[in-house]
């Protein structure tokens, strides 16, 4: 699904945010990207959505070389991705409902589709009572959940989440992880950048660790439980909690 080979990204001539990283993520995988602050996680994700261009190396998504997508086709490529941005990137002039609906509208989703899907996903993220609030009338965690809802709403084949639970309490975080898990179960490839070590430990999935722009670890959890049902998953997550 995703293949980085020798990808390098320099913001300035002197130091590089990504220093020739290579990895492959297969369709349907669930991968964590970890690493301390400034190690290049967000940079990798920005490259993946073509917000930035790599200075060297090749990135392929679903077999397509990103470099080769012509500018006018980029929006169509992006529609196959659900992205949760680290800084949320909500539209300030739209309500919660409209923000989520916008992700459907850009793909040509009709009113009916919006009426069906948006309230559903907002209920799942616990925002049912905040439908008509504007982003500046939400708490930090609520904004983050709107960003999550927007990324999920059109069931993209690839989901990219940059620090999706940084402003969420542990209980809500587990709910979100459960959602991610369920989405992953339906075949969606999921890539999550996070600092939440306890979450990573409990999920027992593949972990790629970056340090100063290099991959220092890429391993499957020993106890990889792929066959787990969502229910079993939830029970385990909660019980493991301290």
């Amino acid at each position: 699904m995703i293949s980085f080979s020798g990808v390098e990204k320099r913001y300035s001539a002197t130091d590089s945010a990504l220093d020739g990283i290579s990895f492959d993520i297969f369709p349907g995988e669930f991968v964590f990207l970890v690493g301390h602050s400034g190690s290049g996680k967000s940079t990798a994700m920005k490259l993946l959505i073509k917000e930035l261009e790599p200075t060297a190396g090749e990135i392929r998504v679903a077999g397509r070389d990103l470099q080769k997508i012509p500018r006018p086709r980029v929006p169509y490529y992006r529609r196959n991705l659900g992205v949760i941005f680290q800084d949320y990137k909500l539209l300030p002039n739209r309500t919660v409902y409209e923000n989520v609906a916008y992700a459907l509208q850009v793909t040509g989703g009709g009113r009916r589709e919006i009426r069906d899907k948006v309230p559903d996903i907002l209920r799942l993220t616990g925002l049912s009572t905040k439908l008509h609030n504007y982003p500046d009338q939400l708490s930090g965690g609520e904004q983050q959940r709107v960003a999550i809802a927007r990324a999920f709403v059109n069931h993209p084949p690839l989901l990219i989440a940059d620090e999706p639970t940084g402003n969420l309490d542990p209980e809500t975080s587990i709910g979100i992880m459960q959602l991610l898990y369920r989405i992953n179960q339906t075949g969606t490839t999921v890539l999550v950048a996070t600092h939440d070590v306890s979450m990573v430990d409990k999920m027992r999935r593949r972990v790629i660790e970056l340090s100063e722009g290099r991959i220092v670890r890429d391993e499957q959890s020993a106890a990889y439980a792929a066959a787990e049902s969502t229910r079993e998953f939830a029970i385990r997550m909660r019980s493991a909690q301290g």
Partner: protein
Amino acid sequence: MKPVFFLREALRALKRNAIPSFAAMATVLVTVLVLGVFIPVVQATTGAANEVRGKVIADVYLKTDAQQKDVDRVERVLKSEPMIKSVEFISKDAAYKTERERNPKAYELLGSNPLPDTFRITPGNPDDIAKIKDALAPEAAGGGRTVIDPAIDEVRNREEDTNKILAVTGVVKITMALLAGLLGVASMLLIANTIRLSLYARRREVEVMKLVGATDWFIRWPFVLEGVIVGLVGGVLAIALLAVVKIAVVDPLAADFALIAAPDTIDFPLLIGLLLVAAVAVSSLGSGLSLRKFLRV
């Protein structure tokens, strides 16, 4: 394209971005107002200048002993001259009558009519008046002038007055054309500038839209429609104000204005249409084009 959706988006954006929308509208209003006042003034002034230029004439005096056949011949000569637009014959008697009215004291004392037959000629283009004079009465080598027909006594065009009229009206017309041009360009720049600025305040929003998968035109259409609405509302308000001023101030003074207003002064409906179209075009194009820079994500 989904016109209704884009229109709703545009209206929402106007509502939620009250300050920049209002600012853009105010700019359109002010510039259209200024243009709406200046265009008629420029038109009237140019019209007046043209009217004045229309009064540039030359008189061809015939010899006092000219016969009817001489008169006819000279008339033919004058009419065959392409630079001359029209030729008016003023007979001795007609001239006497007019002069006498103007200066009764002097003419009372005259027994007979001392005035000659005269052709008053109006040039097609007032600037040609000197050339016409040269054609009818070429300068002689010695310094004086000969005439092209023996029956012509003299060709006179009140040189000083004519030159002054031509120079002044020329300057007035050029000045007006430049002012109109300057004002038009300035208005476009000002409106485009304000719109650019109001988009600048929303560049992050545009960036996010792109990152979420919107195509350029999906983002652009609402902005263009917003520009149309801003131009329309600003333009209509300005025109309403202009109409109020016209009805309340200008029309009562119409008699005075009539003195300077030339017949080809622009008419109000045409002016309205022109201003409205310009306002809408500039603000919508401005929106559409200014956006380009922020769409590069």
